[in-house]
């Protein structure tokens, strides 16, 4: 093998290694992003489920509802960080996130902040102990979940 050939193959090997490494890195970043958002949404779902189940009781605990509203509100602030570019279905991992999230970022951001707003109101009503307002407001919060899921989450 000549000097030149050896150099070329060293460069080729280095290139392959580099490409593999960045590929692996990108893939694991997408995987982490997907896992992070799924964990976050599960926290929102669990907190909202707890709220709705509390409301089925004859005398709901307003403190519990306020605390869970705070979780929903805090988690929903994170939504803008949960969808980095490249973490959609094209990454090859199991995700129900639709490409529309990245195709229409302004609309998606608005859908996320709608949840923040409604969850904030829910927290305030619960903190004030206003049961009637809480009962109406959970429908508003649920409505933001539903409309965003219909637009940006693939059907089960």
């Amino acid at each position: 093998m000549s000097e030149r050939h050896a150099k070329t193959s060293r460069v080729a090997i280095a290139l392959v290694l580099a490409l593999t490494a960045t590929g692996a890195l990108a893939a694991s970043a997408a995987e982490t992003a997907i896992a992070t958002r799924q964990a976050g949404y599960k926290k929102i779902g669990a907190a909202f489920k707890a709220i709705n189940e509390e409301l089925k009781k004859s005398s709901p605990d307003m403190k519990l509802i306020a605390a869970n509203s705070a979780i929903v509100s805090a988690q929903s602030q994170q939504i803008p960080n949960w969808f980095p570019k490249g973490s959609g279905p094209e990454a090859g991992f199991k995700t129900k996130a639709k490409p529309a999230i990245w195709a229409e970022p302004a609309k998606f951001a608005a859908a996320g902040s709608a949840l923040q707003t409604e969850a904030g109101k829910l927290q305030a009503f619960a903190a004030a102990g206003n049961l009637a307002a809480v009962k109406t407001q959970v429908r508003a919060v649920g409505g933001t979940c539903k409309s965003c899921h219909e637009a940006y989450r693939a059907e089960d």
Partner: protein
Amino acid sequence: MWDGPTRIFHWGLVVLLLVSWLTAGENMQVHRWSGYGVIGLLVFRLWWGVAGGSTARFASFLKGPKATLAYARTLGSREPSGTPGHNPLGAWSVMAMLAALLVQVGLGLFASDIDGLESGPLSHLVDFDASRVAAELHETTFRIVQGLVVLHLVAIGYYWLWKRQNLIGAMITGKRKLSAEVLRPATIIRLLIGVVLAVAVAWFIAKGGRL
């Protein structure tokens, strides 16, 4: 051939299954009410299977593999089936439908939607992940229920066309041509016990198992 309560159970179930199907994911309040109705009907049918009129009793129509196979061999004949009540093959179809519906309605009690907004009356007993699994299985078992209902309808069509037997009429009027009246009805007290039992169980579950 069929006593009144069995027929009311049957057609009530037809109506509630349609309601449940149409309201799933659309109107969850009606879907829950419909489910409580199905629970009541199933509880009643289980009670009626041990305490009801003779043709409604499990012991009268459930047969072993030998009798079932023997009956299956006569399926091709154009001779109408002479069994009063469920024939041995239909009996297994009934049991399969009852079992599938018990699983179906049971899973629904613990299910929750993806938003955490709508949930079954017992979902507070399990966490969010488990309630989502219940919801997904609730959808899967509904395909099984649908499959069994289609099989049921195909069988009725087959008896109608091939054996010239009108099973739908029998389930409406309770009577069947050329059939000796073999139904021994149950007492009204047993009917009342069944209704009270059904309402009590459905009510308790609808209240989330809280007394």
